[in-house]
């Protein structure tokens, strides 16, 4: 299936792109992140990140569906 991944902040810099479409068999965000980590050098581990699917917070083991939009959220620093 096709998943669109958006990157922000440090992850965007480390992925060297702000958005990519990936063809994957990853069933969950956890599996997807592990797969992406083989192509990119991410300095942040899943325990430091949160996940959003289609613009809402989600869990690492939520089932992914075709055309989902996934964001891995680095530690925030607003304000």
């Amino acid at each position: 299936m096709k998943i669109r991944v958006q990157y922000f902040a440090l992850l965007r810099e480390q992925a060297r792109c702000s958005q990519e479409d990936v063809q994957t068999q990853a069933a969950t965000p956890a599996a997807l992140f592990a797969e992406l980590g083989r192509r990119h050098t991410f300095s942040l581990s899943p325990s430091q990140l949160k996940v959003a699917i289609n613009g809402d917070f989600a869990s690492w083991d939520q089932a992914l569906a075709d055309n989902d939009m996934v964001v891995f959220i680095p530690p925030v620093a607003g304000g």
Partner: protein
Amino acid sequence: MLFSFSESAIDTAAASRSLADPGAGGFVSFEGWVRNLNEGRRVQKLEYEAFTQLAIKEGTRIVEAALHKFAIRHARCIHRVGPLNIGELAVWVGVSAEHRGEAFDACRFIIDEVKHRVPIWKKEHYEDGDSGWVNCEHCAAAPHHPHAH
């Protein structure tokens, strides 16, 4: 718009006026200003980046929670995105209430929650030429490249 982003200077006077209420006796506002120093390093400028779609949802939930949790009249938060210089206003929170105690508590609640929960990131550019994403560089558990960018 309980929570919104601004790409230009926040008009605090207009924002305050939008919370006016003849039944409100107290108004508390918080302004986050860009400091020239963070964790001992001289900051020259910085930039904010947001996952806007989720940030507006989450920020709105925070202000709604404050309106539910505290006896207040109106509340609002506006956050800057993009590049900012020292002294510039990065975030504004305003709360009007019948009584001041609730306005103080709600204002503090909102800014604390916004800082902890809303997907906004801050990259600091230091006077020594280095730069870094706040809260992302120092806590990285994987191999760490503090000067990679």
